């Protein structure tokens, strides 16, 4: 793999600005990578023609002195849950796609920043799963072991980054769908504070838990992409070089694969050695988060899909259909109870973040599971794959706190492990500043992406 293919946006931007690298060349390289790795099923729609037209326009603007910023002329991918005008939004489903007349606002912001939209990435159908083996466009395969899941639901996005098919990606996250594939594939993914980026023009799963956010190879790049998506400069956070981290403990957080636990211990040691403070914390009531999540996401998803289930039930993957049908049976009184407990969980996370700069925990409790696996074993106990994969991320969808996944080395079998930093609500730029400062301690100096199959 040519090194240029895996350069970061931060490295490429000045070269593009000076005219040393042409946007059309970047598009060509990315398209060649997509073509050469089709068996991974990362993309649903490749937009080669419009990408070359956008590259030509970017080159013209840059050469005439109208450089827009670090995203200008950079190819990015968009999860196929997000509307791009005139391109079908399939949601990874055989249910008839919608044909949007307009871009989602988030796509508009990419265009304003001059990014080149290369295509739409594969996902777990309707973003309702973590393994991406339920997609009408084929299971998304993990570049590090093709018999394994790339996580989900924004799996195609993560694979597109690992394999050099683009330089930045847009994902969505309702229970961990940006952070889980980032961890499974060794990339960086940011779920901002709830409501910080607009979810209009994106097929909803659970409107009160849905987030959209950037995925990249480095924290610096995720900051650049996030800044472009907000449409305004991020505040500069300066002055601090030492931070306090809280590692949540208790049943919910301790049920983690031994190799992932080992990676967390190594990160903890490196942070302490670098002069940071790391302490154990407890998030009150955290163990109820999976139950609260079910009683909020299921009815919200069932409400959106009711009309499509009525007309196209047979077009859904059987597992996705059943989970959606289940949501229709949930009692309103239990939904109200879940809302009350959700408020309590939000207070609990706020409280521990009053005592530290960020929470530190794995983004994914297990290494990427085998495609099709229904259960995994952790410390000798069997557990459904979906529950194990969501366990460490879904809490922060309920509470709306910003969270970022960062690669933290690999297992003995060569599979990526990802850590997660969680910051205070409404302070995503501060979380990014912390993440940039400690990225080296988290990755262990191995870099932010392993380069997949090379």
């Amino acid at each position, binding site marked *: 793999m040519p090194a240029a293919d895996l350069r970061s946006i931060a490295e490429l931007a000045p070269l593009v600005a000076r005219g040393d690298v042409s946007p059309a060349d970047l598009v060509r390289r990315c398209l060649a990578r997509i073509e050469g790795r089709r068996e991974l099923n990362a993309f649903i729609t490749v937009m080669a023609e419009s990408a070359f037209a956008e590259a030509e326009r970017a080159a013209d603007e840059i050469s005439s002195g109208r450089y827009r910023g670090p995203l200008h002329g950079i190819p990015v991918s968009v999860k196929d849950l997000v509307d791009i005008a005139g391109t079908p939004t399939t949601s990874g489903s055989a249910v008839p796609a919608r044909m949007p007349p307009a871009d989602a606002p988030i796509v508009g912001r990419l265009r304003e920043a001059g990014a080149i939209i290369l295509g739409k990435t594969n996902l777990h159908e309707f973003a309702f799963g973590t393994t991406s083996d339920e997609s009408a466009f084929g299971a998304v395969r993990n570049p590090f072991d093709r018999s394994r899941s790339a996580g989900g639901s924004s799996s195609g996005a993560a694979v597109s980054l690992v394999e050099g098919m683009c330089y930045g990606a847009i994902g969505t996250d309702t229970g961990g769908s940006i952070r889980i594939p980032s961890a499974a594939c060794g990339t960086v993914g940011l779920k901002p504070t709830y409501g910080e980026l607009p979810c209009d023009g994106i097929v909803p799963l659970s409107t009160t838990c849905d987030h959209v956010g950037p995925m990249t190879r480095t924290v610096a790049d995720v900051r650049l992409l996030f800044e472009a998506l907000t449409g305004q400069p991020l505040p500069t956070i300066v002055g601090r070089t030492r931070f306090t981290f809280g590692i949540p403990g208790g049943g919910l957080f301790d049920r983690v694969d031994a190799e992932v636990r080992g990676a967390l211990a190594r990160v903890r040691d490196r942070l302490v050695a670098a002069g940071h403070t790391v302490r154990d914390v407890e998030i009150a009531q955290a163990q109820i988060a999976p*139950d609260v999540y*079910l009683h909020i996401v299921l009815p919200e998803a069932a409400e959106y899909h009711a009309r499509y289930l009525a007309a196209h039930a047979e077009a859904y993957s059987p597992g996705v259909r059943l989970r959606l049908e*289940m949501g229709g049976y949930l009692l309103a009184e*239990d939904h109200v109870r879940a809302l009350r407990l959700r408020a309590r969980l939000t207070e609990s996370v706020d409280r521990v973040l009053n005592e530290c700069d960020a929470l530190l925990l794995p983004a994914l409790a297990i290494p990427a599971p085998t495609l099709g696996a229904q259960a995994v074993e952790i410390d000798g106990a069997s557990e459904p794959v979906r529950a194990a994969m969501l366990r460490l991320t879904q809490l922060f969808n309920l509470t709306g706190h910003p969270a970022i996944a960062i690669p933290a080395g690999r297992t003995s079998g060569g599979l990526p492990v990802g850590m997660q930093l969680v910051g205070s609500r409404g302070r995503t730029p501060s979380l990014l500043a912390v993440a940039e400062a400690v990225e080296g301690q988290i990755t262990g100096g191995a870099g932010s992406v392993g380069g997949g199959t090379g």
Partner: protein
Amino acid sequence: MHIEDWLRAACADAEKRGLPELKALLETLARSTTNLRRADEALRAERADGGTP
């Protein structure tokens, strides 16, 4: 509504709709709802006692 009554009615409906495979998921949901109600009762009791809000 008692969870046992809800589960019985939901399973009967799923059967009637030709979705018998939904029953296992509904049983899982029933266990989750039991946990949820227990946690909510504890929270309400805590607040009634003037404990930590």
